[in-house]
Each structure stands twice: as C-alpha cells, then as structure tokens.
C-alpha cells in the first residue's frame, strides 16, 4: 500500500492544475436549464480540446490511454478548482467500448467524448423502473430496419440529446432480460417526441421520450440481438461506482461553504454544529479511502461488478446527510432560499433513486455479494 501519487501521477496532477488554473470558467454556473446545460457542454468541449477527457480509454478511440487513477486525479482536481463536472456520462460510453462494432466506435465515440454529440440513456419506462427487465418498448425487424414503438421516462438530458441509447424488447413479452436489445436512435428521427419533465427543485433535468413507428437501420444495434441486458449491466456498474465520479471534492467544497455560514453565525465553537460537521466530514473521508481502494482494485485489472452497489449506497448516504445537515445549520434561512441550498437538498433526494434505487442496491448486495438465495 502506498496512497501517494507516483512520480508520473504527481507530474500529471501538476500539469492538470496548471491547465485548470488557466481554463476554469470564471463566470458562475447558471442556475437554470437550458443555460446550465449549454454551460456544461461548453466546459466539456474545452476539457476535450485540452486532452483531459476519457483518460483511461484507449488512444485509438479518443482517450489518453491512462489508468483509472488518472481519472480520479482529474475528478479530484476538477472539484478542487471549483470546475463544473464533465458533461458526458462516460459510463454510457463504456457500453460502446465494450460492445460497439469498430464502425460504431469510430462513428460515435469521437462526438461522444468531444460533446459535439450529446447522448441520453433510454432505459426506464413508466411501467419499468426498478424492474427494468419488464420494459415494453418494442423493436420489430422490418427488412434491414427496426421499427420502435413505446415510451421512455426519467431520461436525463433527454430534451437536449442528439442520440438516445434505447433498450427495446425484441423477444416475446415474457422473455424479460433475455429478449432486450440496445439501439442507437437519433432523436431527430421521425416519430420521436420529447417532453421535458420538471424536477421537484424546478429543474428540467429529465424528459419523457415517445417513439411512434421510429425506423432505424439494423446496423444501429449495439451488441447482439437480444443481448441488451449485458450492455445495460456494463453501463450501470460504472454508473454506480464511486470511483468514476468527481463528487467528493464537490461535497467537500459544499461542507466548507456550510462551515463558513456556521462561522458567520458564531457557531464555530458550538459543539452540536461541530458534531454535525464532523459527521459529514467523517463520511467524506471514509468515502475517499473507500474509493481509493476500489480504484486501486480497478487499476490492477479487477473487473467492475456488483460491489459498486456498496459504493453507491455509501455515496447516497453521504450526499443526503450533507444536504440535510446544511438545512439543519441554515435553519430558517433555507426557507428564504439562501444560496440555493434547498434546491440542492431537493436534488439530493434523487440520489437514492437514480442509477438503481437504494432498495435495488440492497437486493444486489444480498443476492450477488452475500449469495443469499431468494
């Protein structure tokens, strides 16, 4: 064990810091959509042009050929510099890396990484949330085309994306996870209709996406026919991992801000405030060391799997504790909307829902990690 940067990692961190100092946007992140979306996309493009996107991906697909440790250094430094999170959900790209044909990789990955083309993930449906394998959107082959009909829900950035990775039923209605296929669907295809879904905090975070006889070429299939479940698993395992996400430094900055408010109030010496801040800080440090352990496993080539459900539960717990503590410390000021804390708090309630609810994570842990038979 040696938790320090190697000489190469330290040099990488130094180069990154220098670049960030010159490139982090000085104007604040807009509060509302779609301005915030455009701001984040512009930042992604700048990161890409600097060579800081998809660090651990192979060079031939636009990555930098580095390791997961460099990815985590990027996340740490983005957070430390107060930079916005990257726009592209790289975990969706993992599905392409693993299951895409050479033609699909060269066609879609560059635009994906450079944020010239924005993607969304058409997985959940009104009747298929946690029970994703029960999804009802259908894709029926017609010559060398597929015809897609159905509805997707909770599609993040669905209103803005140019492409959607759609899971559709290609088997019988009873085939569950064995009869699902993943398709690449341009969102400007005739028959695609999108409606924004407003979050409890007022943000236009999600969309409903409707498919009415949408025709796409069979070559838009990602992975094998009826092999969509594997594609999904690859995506979700990465989505759930703490290591891929740059949240830690962001959380720590929020806790520092909150501590500033406490100081302003003369609560610096107040034991109950110290205890509450200490509890959040303890969670952050545990998450930091836990993420380092996971990253180290990954850097040594261990595959990402069900253990990410543990990481996601810990992250969720941490984020929700942080924002709840913020409201406790702010008290009545939160009611007046100071600093947007209440909005962030409302958003934190989604952490235990998206990427698989906490209940589903516990199902995965008890079944796949503890091996308890149902």
């Amino acid at each position: 064990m040696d938790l320090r940067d190697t000489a190469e990692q330290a040099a990488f961190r130094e180069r990154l810091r220098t670049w960030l100092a010159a490139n982090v946007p000085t104007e604040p992140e807009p509060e509302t959509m779609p301005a915030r979306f455009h701001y984040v996309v512009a930042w992604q493009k700048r990161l890409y042009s600097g060579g800081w996107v998809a660090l651990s991906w192979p060079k031939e697909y636009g990555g930098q050929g580095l390791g997961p440790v460099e990815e985590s250094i990027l996340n740490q430094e983005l957070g430390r510099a107060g930079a916005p999170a990257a726009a592209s959900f790289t975990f969706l790209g993992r599905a392409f890396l693993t299951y895409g044909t050479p033609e699909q990789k060269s066609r879609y990955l560059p635009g994906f990484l450079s944020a010239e083309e924005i993607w969304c993930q058409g997985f959940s449906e009104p009747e298929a949330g946690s029970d994703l394998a029960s999804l009802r959107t259908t894709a029926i082959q017609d010559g060398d085309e597929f015809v897609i009909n159905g509805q997707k829900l909770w599609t993040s950035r669905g209103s803005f994306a140019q492409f959607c990775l759609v899971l559709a039923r290609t088997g019988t209605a009873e085939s569950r996870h064995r009869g699902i296929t993943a398709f690449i669907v341009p969102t400007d295809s005739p028959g695609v209709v999108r409606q924004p879904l407003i979050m409890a905090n007022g943000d236009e975070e999600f969309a409903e996406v409707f498919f009415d006889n949408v025709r796409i070429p069979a070559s838009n299939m990602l992975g094998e026919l009826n092999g969509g479940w594997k594609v999904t698993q690859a995506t979700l395992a990465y989505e759930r991992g703490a290591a891929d996400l740059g949240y830690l430094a962001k959380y720590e900055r929020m806790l520092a801000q909150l501590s500033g408010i406490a100081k302003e109030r003369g609560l610096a010496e107040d034991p109950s405030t110290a205890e509450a801040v200490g509890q959040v800080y303890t969670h952050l440090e545990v998450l930091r060391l836990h993420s380092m352990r996971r990253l180290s496993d990954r850097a040594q080539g261990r595959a990402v799997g069900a253990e990410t459900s543990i990481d996601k539960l810990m992250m969720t717990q941490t984020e929700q504790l942080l924002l709840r503590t913020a409201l406790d410390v702010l008290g009545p000021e939160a009611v007046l909307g100071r600093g947007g804390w209440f909005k962030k708090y409302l958003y934190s309630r989604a952490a235990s829902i998206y990427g698989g609810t906490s209940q589903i994570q516990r199902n995965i842990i008890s079944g796949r990690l503890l091996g308890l038979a149902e």
Partner: protein
Amino acid sequence: MDFSLADEQELLASSARSLAADMFGESVARQALGDDYSKADEGWSQLQAAGLTSLLIAEDHGGGGGTLLDACVVTTELYSALAPVPYLTSAVAAPLLLRGVRADRAAPLLTALAEGATYGLVVDKALSWPPAGPEVVCLDWRPGREGLLLDAERAELIPFESRTGIDPLHPVGVATVEGRAARAEADLLAQSQRALAAVRVAAAAALTGCLAGAAQLAWDYIATRQQYGKPIASFQAVRHMAADLLVDLETCRSVSLGAAWQVDNEPIEDAVRVATVAKAWCGQAAVRAIETAIQLLGGIGVTWESTAHLYLRTAHQLASAFGDTRTLLRQVGGQFVAARGGRGDGSA
C-alpha cells in the same frame, strides 16, 4: 497510488485468521467468561511464537519491525475470533507509546513484550479516557497482570484492583495514582500523539473485526433459519438488513486500512485527523451493525448463549476507549470549521 495489501500482508492476514480459528473462537471466549484463561494464554504463546505480538517492536529489541498496517490486519482477525487476549494494549499500544519514553526505561519492557509478556494499559485523560475521580483505569487488566503506566519520564508497572466492566473478554482494573488522572492529551509528546493516533486506528481495526464476526453470525443464521417454510434470508426485509451489514463492514475495512497507512506515513496533523475519522466511523458502524446482526438473529441473539452480545460488549468498550465517537466527531468537525470554513457565500 496503490491501496492493495502486499503479498506478505495477505499472508499475515491468512496466517492470523487460521491461527485465530485454531486457538480462539467461542469455546475459549466462554472459558474466559469463567475466569479460565489457560486456553487464551496458550493462544497468546502461539501468537508470540508466530511473531504476531511483536510486530511493532523494533528488531533491536527482538521484535519484527513491522508497520501499523501489519498490526491492524492481525487485530481485525483476532477480534473477529473473540480472542480474549490483550493484543490492542500489549502488542499495539504499549510498544508504540514506549517509543516516546526514555530509552533506558523503555528497553527492558520492550524486550519483555517481545518475549510475550502481557500488560494492562493505564489510560487517563491524555489517552482520551476522561477521569472519574482520582482513580485511573487499566484496560486489558486481569488478576495477576500488571498495569503499564507510561509518560515521557516514566514507565512503571503498578498493581490494580478488579473492576467489573461491560466486556468480559477485555476486563478492566482500577487504581489510584496521584496526579495522574488529570494529565491531558495536550501533555503528550509529539511522538506519543502519533502513537495515540495509531492506537485509535488499531481500535478501528478491532471494531472492524467485531463487526465482521457478528455479521458472519447473522448471515449464516438467516441462510439456514426457516420460517413460513423457507429460509428467512428469502424475505426482503431481512435481506436488506443483511446488505447494510456489508456496507458497514466494507467501509470499515477501507477506512481502517487506509488510515493505518496514513498514520505511518503522513505529517502528524493528517495522521491525527484521519485516525480520528477512522475511529469515529468504525465505532459507530460497528455498534450499529452488531445491533442489526442481533435483530437478524432474533430471540437467540439476545440470549447469553449467543456470542452476539460478546461482540457488542467489546464494540462498546472499544467505541468508548481512546476517544468516544461523539467526542471524536466534535474534534474533527470543530477543526474543519476552524480551518476550512470559508465565507458563507462560498468564497475562501
């Protein structure tokens, strides 16, 4: 950045695990409850012979010259096996605290420890045990064992009297020592501050062991216990509680192992901070998880016959020793607010 255990450490863990399984476990713990320590002492001799009790003693004094991480790996295994031995005190705390004691006084004690001697550890306010009157407390003390009292000038062995505590596997003694109870943490030398941080991390590793042992009891039980014609592990309410045990266990492992490395390798402020965090997390997670394990064990879990209460007793004693959870949270939170609290608008 590398979080993995070295091959030798993996080997250390597996030999500690198999030694603990052979020499300790429920029957030896039960004998200790009846004040029969013959098997426990035999186990200690085996640990000593394997070099596991002297990992933190320098080679000059007959020890293994190992790291805190080595010792933590062993600590977790021993506490998971309910070993009624003074590992945390005689194999971890004493050697580390003796590094801050005058060499001529420390040397004979280190040599004795390397040869397998066991001592109780006198804890006072400086070791985060708040004084309750003039008496000081000695951890891991039992009749026939002496208590080791340490500060920069002194390394003395003194007699103690038995005091009924909550943890029969790690009993305590009390004695009156003039002027000692009020010694504060601030009186510790820098060397001893790092030692205290290390002891906190080792306590976190011990708590991780208690959690691991109790969780395994619960996981085994729910997989076999049948109600309504099937194992209770098939019910989601039960499965979800079982899953929570693993979240607590894995995060405890991460923070205790990572903190062990940091305390050995980083500046004193960082060592103290991360040790505080590790102890605070493992203290609360172990108590919470063992309570959950007892819930999963149902009626049997609240009987004397189950070993669950032994894990819970040890966890509570550890959670209170060397800084209780609440005090540690306040310390680390207070320091964060003082050092990092920017202005309320988010600017530094």
